[in-house]
C-alpha cells in the first residue's frame, strides 16, 4: 500500500481472528489492531479529525497553540500532527501516567503541564479548562465533547469493522472519552439490527477516584447511554491477566486497556456459548504494549504487576 504521506495512511487497520481464545467455531473473537496507526494508537483517528475540523472552521492556523487534557495517547497523536502542521501544543496530563507517554509527547515537541494524580483525568480536564480561560488565544480541541471525535469512528472505524465482519454480533471497546463506542456504536446500530455495543470501563486503584466530592465526578459530553447495550467495570487484575493471555496465546502485544476490552469480549463470548447462540465479537486493540513496559505489566507474577500498577492510569 502506498500513501502520499504518513497522515494519509491513517486507518484501514487489520481485523484479526483469535483462534485460540475464541471458545468455538460458532463463537469467535476478532481484534481490530488500532496500534497499526501512524503514532501507534486508535487516538490518531479522533486527533486527525478534530484538527481537520478546527482548520476548516478557521480556529487553527500555523503559529497557533493547541491545548488538550489527555492521559497520553490523544496528546501523542495531536503532538505529531501539530509538529507537521506548525502548531504548538500544550498537554495537561495526570502525573500518574507512564514515563513513555511523557517521553513520546516531548519527542514531538509538546509542552506538558501535570495535574495531580488524585482525581485522575478529572483533574486534567479541570486544569485544562482553567488554562483555556486564562489563555483565550489557545485552541482547546476537547476530545470529551468534540463531535469530530465520535464522527471519526462513525465515518471510518465503524465502516471498516462492518466491511471486514458483516456477520458481527457484538462490538466491544474501552470507555474513556466514549468517542469510539459512540461513533462505531451508532454506525453499527444503523446497519446491523440487534448488534450489541458493549463498553469496558477500566477500574483503577483508589487514588484515581480520590475526588474531594462525589459531585466532582465527570461524564464526557459525548456520552449517550442509549448507544450502549451494556457497560462493564474491569479491574486492573482482570485487564492485566487478559493482556498477558492475548500475548501468550495469540501473539498480540497490546496495551493494558486492550486486556480490559478483551475481558468484556470474553464475557460476552461465554454468554453466547451458554445461550447456544452464534457470535462474532469485534473488539478494539487501542494500542501496543510498548508504552507500558516501564510499568512492569508484562513481567513477574500477576499479583506483582497489579501492585506496581496500583494508582496508575493505564488506559
Amino acid at each position, binding site marked *: 500500500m502506498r500513501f502520499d504521506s504518513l497522515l494519509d495512511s491513517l486507518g484501514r487497520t487489520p481485523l484479526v481472528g483469535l483462534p485460540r481464545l475464541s471458545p468455538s467455531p460458532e463463537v469467535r473473537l476478532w481484534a481490530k489492531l488500532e496500534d497499526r496507526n501512524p503514532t501507534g494508537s486508535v487516538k490518531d483517528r479522533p486527533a486527525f479529525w478534530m484538527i481537520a475540523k478546527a482548520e476548516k472552521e478557521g480556529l487553527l492556523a500555523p503559529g497557533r497553540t493547541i491545548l488538550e487534557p489527555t492521559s497520553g495517547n490523544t496528546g501523542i497523536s495531536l503532538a505529531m500532527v501539530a509538529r507537521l502542521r506548525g502548531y504548538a501544543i500544550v498537554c495537561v496530563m495526570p502525573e500518574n501516567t507512564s514515563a513513555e507517554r511523557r517521553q513520546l509527547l516531548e519527542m514531538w515537541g509538546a509542552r506538558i503541564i501535570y495535574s495531580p494524580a488524585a482525581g485522575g483525568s478529572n483533574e486534567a480536564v479541570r486544569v485544562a479548562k482553567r488554562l483555556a480561560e486564562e489563555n483565550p488565544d489557545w485552541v482547546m480541541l476537547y476530545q470529551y465533547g468534540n463531535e469530530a471525535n465520535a464522527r471519526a469512528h462513525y465515518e471510518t472505524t465503524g465502516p471498516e469493522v462492518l466491511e471486514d465482519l458483516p456477520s458481527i454480533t457484538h462490538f466491544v471497546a474501552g470507555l474513556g472519552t466514549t468517542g469510539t463506542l459512540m461513533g462505531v456504536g451508532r454506525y453499527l446500530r444503523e446497519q446491523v439490527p440487534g448488534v450489541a455495543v458493549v463498553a469496558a470501563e477500566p477500574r483503577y486503584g*483508589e487514588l484515581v*477516584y480520590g475526588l474531594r466530592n*462525589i459531585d*466532582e*465526578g465527570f461524564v464526557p459530553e459525548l456520552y449517550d447511554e442509549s448507544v450502549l447495550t*451494556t457497560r*462493564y*467495570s474491569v479491574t486492573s487484575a482482570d485487564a492485566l491477566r487478559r493482556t498477558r493471555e492475548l500475548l501468550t496465546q495469540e501473539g498480540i502485544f497490546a496495551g493494558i486497556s486492550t486486556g480490559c476490552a478483551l475481558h468484556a469480549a470474553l464475557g460476552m463470548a461465554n454468554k453466547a456459548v451458554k445461550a447456544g447462540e452464534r457470535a462474532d465479537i469485534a473488539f478494539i486493540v487501542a494500542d501496543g504494549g510498548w508504552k507500558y513496559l516501564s510499568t512492569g505489566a508484562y513481567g513477574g507474577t500477576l499479583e506483582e504487576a497489579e501492585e506496581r500498577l496500583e494508582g496508575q492510569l493505564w488506559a
Partner: protein
Amino acid sequence: MAIEVRIPTILRNYTDGAKAVEGGGATLDQLFADLESRHPGLRGRLVDEKGLRRFVNVYLNDEDVRFLGGLETKVSDGDTVTVLPAVAGG
C-alpha cells in the same frame, strides 16, 4: 444480609471508614434503604429524586446497573455491588 457493597473512599465517612459493608434486599433500591438504616446519609449521596445521581456509577457483579434495571435491579445473596464516582478516561 449477605450482599457485599463496596464503598469508594469519598463516601467512607458514612461507613466509619469501612471499604465494604453488607446489606440485604430484593432490589438495589431496597438494599440502599437497608444500608441507610445503619449508615445514615449514605443513600442521599447515591440517589436523588430522579434516581441514581449523575456522577455515581453502581455495578452489580461488575455490570453497570443503569443497563440492568436501575434502582429496580434485582439483587440477591452473594452478589457484589460496587459504587464508584464517574471519572474521565482518554
